[in-house]
């Protein structure tokens, strides 16, 4: 693993809102993780956990309260010149959650997709611009003839494909997908996920996949981070976190996922998570690597218990 480049490093990121006011919100509270080139990192959490804020901080829509975000080793807060910022925006793109709200209803599909092409002056001529749009539409499985239509003429799944085409238009390396499938029907979700995976293979993309749908996250991700109240609870390879969850919050989250199997459902016991047992006291907690690649948020005195559990899993 070590030889792979860490394309993105998040170091002690804090993102507070209304700082200093009575309604201060610690949306993201001291989070550190890294994403390797070419992998899909899944970020899972419930609403209000700060997962979307993490994504938005990474793409520099917010100025971090504290901490650093390094993209290719460069601190994104320190990109001072317009040229370097423009370059950063080209390398990193976002796919949004709601395909109904994220496309301008008054713009034609080709202008939506080509907006980034125009900003970054990627097209040499109008003909080249149209060719690029037509190609992108084909890549995401839409008909190039649809370029002159407006968003309302498309279904939810098709709109999400347009959003994906828009993100791909500037040939990024890194894409943040913020709940890209949660607004879609089951049969369409699978289509979009397959498309994202094909594109990753073809264009060597790196994904940050933000979602609350755990089964889909497990399917698409190489590694998963579990976030709760603005803190990362556990990071591990996708299979590992499902097979051997260590943190009680992860266990609780996994136990709540309904599975399309009646026999399994009859036996499923939801485990409750009591945050007061694991947070809120004065102990200092941080992410610790319990077994190689498997990190868990723990205090010094909790660590042996987790290590024991991890050992037990390995034996089994």
């Amino acid at each position, binding site marked *: 693993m070590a030889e792979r480049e860490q394309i993105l490093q998040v170091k002690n990121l804090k993102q507070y809102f209304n700082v200093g006011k009575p309604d201060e919100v610690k949306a993201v509270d001291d989070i550190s993780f890294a994403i390797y080139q070419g992998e899909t990192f899944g970020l899972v959490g*419930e*609403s209000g956990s700060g997962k979307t804020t993490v994504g938005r901080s990474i793409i520099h829509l917010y100025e971090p309260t504290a901490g650093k975000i390094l993209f290719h080793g460069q601190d994104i807060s320190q990109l001072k010149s317009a040229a370097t910022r423009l370059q950063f925006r080209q390398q990193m793109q976002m796919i949004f959650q709601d395909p109904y709200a994220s496309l301008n209803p008054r713009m034609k599909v080709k202008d939506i997709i080509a907006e980034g092409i125009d900003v970054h002056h990627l097209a040499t001529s109008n003909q080249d611009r149209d060719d690029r749009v037509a190609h992108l539409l084909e890549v995401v499985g839409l008909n190039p003839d649809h370029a002159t239509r407006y968003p309302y003429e498309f*279904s*939810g*799944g*098709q709109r999400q494909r347009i959003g994906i085409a828009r993100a791909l238009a500037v040939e990024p390396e890194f894409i943040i997908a913020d709940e890209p499938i949660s607004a879609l*029907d*089951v*049969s*369409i*979700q*699978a*289509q979009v*996920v*397959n498309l994202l*995976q094909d594109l990753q293979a073809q264009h060597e993309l790196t994904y940050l996949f933000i979602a*609350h749908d*755990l*089964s*889909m996250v*497990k*399917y698409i991700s190489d590694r998963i981070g579990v976030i709760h109240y603005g803190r990362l609870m556990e990071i591990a390879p996708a*299979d590992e976190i*499902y097979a051997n969850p260590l943190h009680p919050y992860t266990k*609780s*989250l996994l*136990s*709540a*996922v*309904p*599975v*399309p*199997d*009646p*026999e*399994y*459902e*009859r036996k*499923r016991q*939801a485990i409750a*998570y009591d945050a007061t047992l694991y947070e809120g006291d004065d102990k200092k907690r941080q992410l610790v690597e319990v077994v190689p690649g498997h990190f868990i948020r723990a205090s010094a005195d909790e660590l042996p218990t987790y290590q024991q559990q991890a050992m037990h899993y390995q034996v089994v």
Partner: protein
Amino acid sequence: MTNILEVNDLAVSFTTFAGDVQAVRGVSFDLHKGEILAIVGETGSGKSVTTKAIMGLLANNAKIKSGTIKFAGQDLLKATPKEMAQINGNDIAEIIQDPMTSLDPTMTIGKQVSEPLRIHKEMSRKQAMVRTKEVLELVGIQNASARMKDYPHQFSGGQRQRIVIAMALVNNPKILIADEPTTALDVTIQAQILKLMKELQKRIDTSIIFITHDLGVVAGMADRVAVMYAGKIVEIGLVDEIFYDPKHPYTWGLINSMPTLDTKSHRLAAIAGTPPDLLDPPKGDAFAPRNPYALKIDCQQEPPFFAVTATHAAATWLLHPNAPQVTPPPEILRRQQFYQKHFATKVQQLDPFSAAK
């Protein structure tokens, strides 16, 4: 088993500028007393329109093309608005999808939950408040008598959904319609709400029509399942029959397109294409254009329902005696083998139909 509700050949169209949208095209099902019937389907499959028709709450541009909805000896489609107002909120109640927008922000919780009591049971304010407190406690609102004076914004999403459930339950309805009651909630909260609904259903012995697109939720909640596609029920059966022995290719596709906990290496089996335009539904089986198992006849003639067991039927020509044998996707085969091993004999014993065969 007694039927509490009988829907027969229901067809609903909406008049739009573009023409008539045939949202529901001949739906028939029975709701048994004390059961949870799940209706699953994609957006636009007609599942919500069906329940709106039951409650007489269709939009003004809706036309009932045909059908009857029998409840307590009465055809609800012929009931006057006044009669429907007597039934809704009393005998039939709905748990609405979005807890964030379905409560009135300017009314206290106590007043909102007690409204059905004041209207239908003509209770005094005092009596109503006693009952309201009872129901709020039943759905797990802590410190109910004090919190009745609070407004919706003072509650979390999960609590609001509990309040919406309390509102629906307050008159002990015979039928509860739950339209995606947990879609807006987080998984852990969803688990709590579903558990609550199951417990309450047993306790007050009501029948639930549960609308959702989440097959995981269906597997945990339903006694029976109806799968809808393009305004029709394509398969209906006991929950084990639908999940372990599905017969319709659309049901196969739905189950197959979900990642299971051990799916990893291979691609998700997406259902190609998009649902048909119901302005002009295709001839024959509406699923045929997306169906890799489609037969020639699927494009010409609509398949009737073929009975699999006394409780299980599917509208696909593949069940016709003359149809060619097809091999379903591996995941479905795995499930069918599981079914043969664990359920088939059990179902046959219960089932006079297949025993006679």
